[in-house]
């Protein structure tokens, strides 16, 4: 697991992503400047923080949680109550920039409470406890209407609160910059945490708890600390959500939210620091935009998840990283063509599969299946055989070539290399 490269010396050049990312982040809202787009960007920031907090558990400590949204949502609720308090007091009180800290506090609080009994065992038992807890909290959201506001949720106004820097947070762009600031702070903190003894021990506990015990650290304590810190960061993300959305309801503690962060982090790559960042951005974007283009978005999510679990458990970042390493090790010499061939055949197969799925959804779901259906720019009739044959054909040919022609070809070429060039 290529997770932590030993941090040798602060070579300033190595820090260039940390410089570039904020610059890109600052420029983005000027390129995509519609209200909806800036909203989306803010949500991506929140999702990044949430996913990073989740990976502290999964990637760093090996704890698979199915109910992490509990801390995210509870953090959001507490922050919302604080915001409403500020609103009711006529806009006096905690500056809005510090509101996420109340969320973090709430996350920490609940993390400590629930963590005491959750982390005593790892593995599947931990996963099940988090599942049960998540379901418990979500079910009780309708029971405690004072705190949860019933199924309608709670509202607050971010422009009726004081600001540390005198900024008016009614415009979306200003909120976005606040989100960027918090995202950077959290990312730096989480990154640094990985380099502390706690971070290293968490990895040890993940890989081999018994051995970690022999070194002198109690795995349960290590897990507990990681768990509470992770919950705190999740609560921070929830607090930010209150500022971006000004509404919180029971969805925030629900199973879908927990599933989404799990999906995102895993798709991005749990073994890499930027894995959750990539995953969080991707899932937020897809969740919001994909459903505008296709009804089958949930199916795509599920398939994508299964594909990553089965073929690329290292995540998207992992795939790219592995290929990069291969390239650096000159493994690409002589077989770049084969690799590209596999890539394009695979893409063709995926394209065909998407066509089949879209056709199916149109055929089974639409009011009038024989109406002309725009599929990837071509208008087809879903009730005739031709589009089906073509799409199935592309899928089969694409995947077939990739698996039965390209893969062996690559293997032969690699084999030939290690045999000293004898083809």
């Amino acid at each position, binding site marked *: 697991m290529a997770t932590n490269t030993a941090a040798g010396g602060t070579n300033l050049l190595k820090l260039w992503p940390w410089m570039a990312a904020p610059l890109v982040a600052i420029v983005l809202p000027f390129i995509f400047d519609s209200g909806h787009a800036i909203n989306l960007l803010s949500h991506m920031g929140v999702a990044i923080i949430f996913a990073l907090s989740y990976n502290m558990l999964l990637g760093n400590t090996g704890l*698979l949680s199915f109910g992490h949204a509990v801390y995210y949502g509870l953090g959001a609720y507490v922050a919302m109550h604080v915001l409403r308090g500020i609103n009711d007091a006529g806009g006096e009180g905690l500056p809005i920039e510090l509101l996420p800290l109340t969320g973090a506090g709430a996350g920490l609080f609940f993390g400590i409470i629930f963590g005491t009994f959750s982390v005593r065992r790892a593995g599947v038992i931990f996963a099940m406890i988090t599942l049960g807890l998540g379901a418990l909290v979500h079910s009780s959201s309708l029971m405690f209407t004072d705190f949860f506001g019933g199924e309608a949720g709670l509202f607050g106004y971010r422009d009726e609160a004081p600001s540390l820097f005198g900024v008016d947070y009614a415009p979306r762009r200003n909120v976005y910059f606040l989100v960027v600031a918090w995202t950077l702070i959290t990312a730096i903190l989480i990154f640094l945490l990985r380099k502390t003894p706690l971070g290293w021990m968490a990895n040890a506990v993940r890989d081999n708890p018994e051995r970690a015990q022999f070194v002198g650290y109690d795995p349960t304590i290590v897990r507990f600390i990681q768990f509470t810190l992770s919950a705190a960061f999740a609560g921070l993300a929830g607090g930010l959500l209150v500022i971006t959305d000004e509404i919180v309801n029971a969805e925030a503690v629900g199973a879908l939210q927990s599933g989404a962060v799990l999906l995102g982090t895993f798709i991005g790559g749990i073994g890499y620091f930027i894995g959750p960042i990539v995953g969080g951005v991707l899932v937020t974007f897809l969740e919001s935009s994909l459903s505008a283009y296709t009804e089958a978005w949930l199916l795509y999510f599920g398939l994508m998840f299964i594909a990553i679990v089965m073929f690329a458990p290292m995540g998207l970042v992992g795939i790219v990283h592995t290929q990069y390493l291969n390239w650096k090790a000159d493994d690409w010499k002589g077989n770049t063509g084969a690799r590209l061939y596999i890539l394009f055949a695979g893409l063709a197969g995926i394209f065909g599969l998407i066509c089949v799925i879209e056709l199916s959804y149109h055929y089974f779901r639409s009011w009038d299946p024989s109406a002309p259906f725009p599929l990837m720019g071509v208008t087809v009739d879903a009730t005739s055989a031709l589009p089906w044959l073509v799409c199935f054909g592309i899928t089969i040919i694409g995947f077939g070539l990739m698996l039965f022609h390209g893969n062996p070809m690559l293997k032969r070429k690699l084999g030939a290399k290690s045999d000293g060039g004898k083809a």
Partner: protein
Amino acid sequence: MLETIAYSIFNGVLYGTLLFMMSSGLTLIFGMMGVLNFAHASFYMLGAYFAYTFGLGTGFWVALFLSPIAVGAIGAMVERYGLRRVHQYGHVPELLFTFGLAYVIEELVALFWGTVPVPYKAPAALNTTAFTMFGLDYSWFKVFILLVAIAMFIGLWVLIKKTRAGLIIQGALSRPDMVGALGHNVPMVFTLVFAFGCALAGLGGVVGGIHFVTDPGMAFMMGPIVFVVVVLGGLGSVPGALVASLIIGILQTFFLSVDFSLAESIGTLGIEDSGFFGVLWHMEATRIAPVLPFLLLVLTLIFRPRGLFGKREV
């Protein structure tokens, strides 16, 4: 009061036996492979839908046999081409695989059969009243459910305890390496057990789909409760699953039927109906009922992760 208790026990037992039918397969799979099959309830759902579709052509009784076989076949393919591949990466990816699979199956079911519940109804022969108790009619179908569950339980027990196949399964449950060393094809055993477990879930679906509603949401509705049953009963223990199902069935039914809250029974004790404890004190049992299984799950996992009759922990 007697009537309420009588209703609750009978309805609770009925509900519990349905839970048992759904969870017996899962406890076998869970106990054998340590895989928390999130998609188990999805196979239950497939059982219901297949039974409905086959039933349109062949009638209920033939569908009763065809459907579990079809579901079992799908389970075998899932294990052979999906789970087995992921097994090498560890338990967590296995879990995640079944997690994704549950979503995919739900979407595909919604695609082919639509999101509206399908009119999967009991066959006319079973739709008549068997008996009346305290003014409420109970149909033959409800009796049928009980019979199927009992048959399932006896069949499983005989299979595992009395047959050679059962012996091998029991062995593979606790000592897979040794069983493999003895020359048995353990991967094949795994596939068969997985398929069998899915077929059991499918059978549960054939019956459950009629008793409840057959719609794409049924898997996610029943799924979590099935886990609770399996954990409470103990992994790999079929009697445990039965006892746990009955406990949860009866308990939940009681909470739903009986109109009480702590405040009403013991007295308000001056506790206001606000704040965390206050609300709980005044809350009626019916409103707590949905939360009950999860509470049991968490408590079991904290205090007795082995469950009631489990032989080993995960």
